[in-house]
């Protein structure tokens, strides 16, 4: 049984301009102890897909589809049942550690609150476990630092605090929404290594959302590339980096600056803009920007096909032996 299984997920937002279709039939699964990277540009629907797992969509949003967590259907749970899972079995860390902590409470109070709420443990016990977890995320002098306020921590330290908070209840699934985007590159590497170590220690599944392929390369087991709210390619990390098949994936990989690029060569960007989610094209969402577009791309939406074992791609270039 997969830890998390998402099937045919659709997310819609009602807006004044019409219905925004953020996610359109996304399916994926995640095993225990595995890291799945969700990669895509802004507006590819990766964040919204994950928010709907925890039912954290904005008020004007709604989702359809099946989300099974440890064999249990989440999409039909009421708020109370959902609150028992949030922060307890499924935890989330946010992009910006500067704003995700409450500046008026000490770190201790924010951490113990979660434990008291979910496990009903006493303050003293909660404090002990919070300190333990801060030590696990390598915060020096944890028993002293815990009494400080968030603004007295540096950005990297705050992200560590966020991670510690998320891990307090030993969740089975950790959702990391761009966990390193707001951090310095050097701190980024530390946090990624920390996440990898913690994953082994606690044996949890990680759903990693990012637009940075480098982050996926260092942390992910499998990658799912999203475009226009759909999957366009899914494969193991090594396989994807070595044999990218979808033109979009190739474009993404091509637009990453590399050390071995000859001096003076221009970085190749993917031309055009992401599609408007108000009116998606009937065919492949990437077709208007694709250099290898064929006639049917504009009309028929490509289905997901297995191009190699464990390597799925949704592109007419790789379908039906054409």
């Amino acid at each position, binding site marked *: 049984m997969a830890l998390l299984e998402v099937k045919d997920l659709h997310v819609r937002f009602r807006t004044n301009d019409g219905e925004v279709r953020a996610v359109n039939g996304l399916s994926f699964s995640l095993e225990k102890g595995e890291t799945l990277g969700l990669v895509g540009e802004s507006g590819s629907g990766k964040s919204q897909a994950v928010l709907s797992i*925890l039912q*954290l969509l904005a*008020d004007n949003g709604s989702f359809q589809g099946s989300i099974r967590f440890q064999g249990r259907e989440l999409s039909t749970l009421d708020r109370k049942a*959902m*609150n*028992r*899972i*949030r*922060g*307890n079995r499924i*935890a*989330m860390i*946010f*992009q*910006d550690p*500067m*704003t*995700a*902590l*409450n*500046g*008026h*409470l*000490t770190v201790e*109070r924010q951490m113990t*609150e*979660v434990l008291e*709420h*979910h496990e009903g443990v006493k303050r003293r016990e909660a404090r002990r476990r919070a300190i333990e977890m801060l030590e696990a995320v390598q915060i020096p002098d944890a028993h*002293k630092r815990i*009494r*400080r*306020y968030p*603004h*007295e921590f540096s950005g990297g330290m705050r992200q560590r605090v*966020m991670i510690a*908070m998320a891990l307090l209840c030993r969740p089975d699934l950790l959702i990391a929404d761009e966990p390193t985007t707001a951090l310095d590159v050097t701190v980024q590497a530390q946090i990624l290594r920390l996440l990898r170590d913690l994953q082994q220690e606690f044996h949890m599944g990680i759903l990693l959302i990012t637009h940075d392929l480098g982050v996926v390369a260092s942390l992910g087991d499998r990658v799912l590339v999203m475009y226009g709210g759909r999957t366009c390619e899914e494969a193991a990390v090594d396989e994807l980096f070595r044999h990218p098949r979808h033109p979009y994936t190739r474009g993404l990989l091509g637009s990453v600056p590399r050390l071995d690029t000859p001096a003076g060569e221009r970085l190749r960007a993917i031309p055009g803009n992401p599609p408007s989610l108000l009116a998606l094209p009937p065919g492949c969402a990437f077709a208007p920007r694709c250099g290898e577009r064929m006639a049917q791309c504009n009309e028929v939406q490509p289905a997901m096909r297995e191009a190699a074992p464990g390597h799925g791609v949704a592109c007419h270039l790789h379908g039906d032996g054409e």
Partner: protein
Amino acid sequence: MTEEIRGRSLWQDALARLKRNRAAVTALVLLALIVLLVTAGPWLSPWSLDEIDWDHISTPPSLETRHWFGTDSVGRDLFVRTLHGGRMSLMVGLVATAVSLVIGIAWGATAGYLGGRVDGFMMRVVDILYAMPFMFFVILLMVFFGRDILLIFVAIGAINWLDMARIVRGQTLALKQREFVEAAVACGLTAPRIIARHIVPNLLGVVAVYVTLTIPQVILVESFLSFLGLGVQEPATSWGALVNEGAQEMESAPWSLLFPAGFLAATLFCFNFIGDGLRDALDPRDR
């Protein structure tokens, strides 16, 4: 050493900044003096609140007669009456503000946080109450239930919480969008817990500033009511009532107007300066 470990909260930071604001500190000291005088002062004088000194009716201030602020037209000591009036005015200010604070924060934070239809309903209730003519409301209350100090507290508090609720709701709407609230939801915390622990502490800065502006406003409203003759009842008095009496004979006995009016103005100034200082100290820059 322990201080080093504890960490400085945003409040402590603000306090440190407030201490550097000379106007606010002066106002704080002056206000503390006024409060001290008002609480302890009446015991210093040999006279009591409603004692009539038949030998000195409408006499100017004098150390000899021990009427330090003079006497009023019926021979009561103005020093004692001014301080007693101060007790009443400050008490009305504090109690009515506390009432408006509690109702306003609870109402506003709930409406703002829950949003949607609940918010719409709760804020329409506020709008409807807002539309009621306040003076008419108070006069009706006085006519029906007689003049009662408690009633003044309730009436003023009941009006002032409307402003508070609106301010708090607006702030809550903004706070709700902040990531730490989203993070709290993602941690599985329930709405009442989030409101109490995450929303309200973040509101207190704005609320504190507003409170320092509400207290003088309430004191003024009470003064106004007393001036109209709807406020406290004789022999109890307030600064407003004293100013009213003083104004009637300010040509023959200006001291009976000047002393209470001076105290009233000084207190209002103090609160306004403190509010100003607090606003600067709690500058909503995120740190």
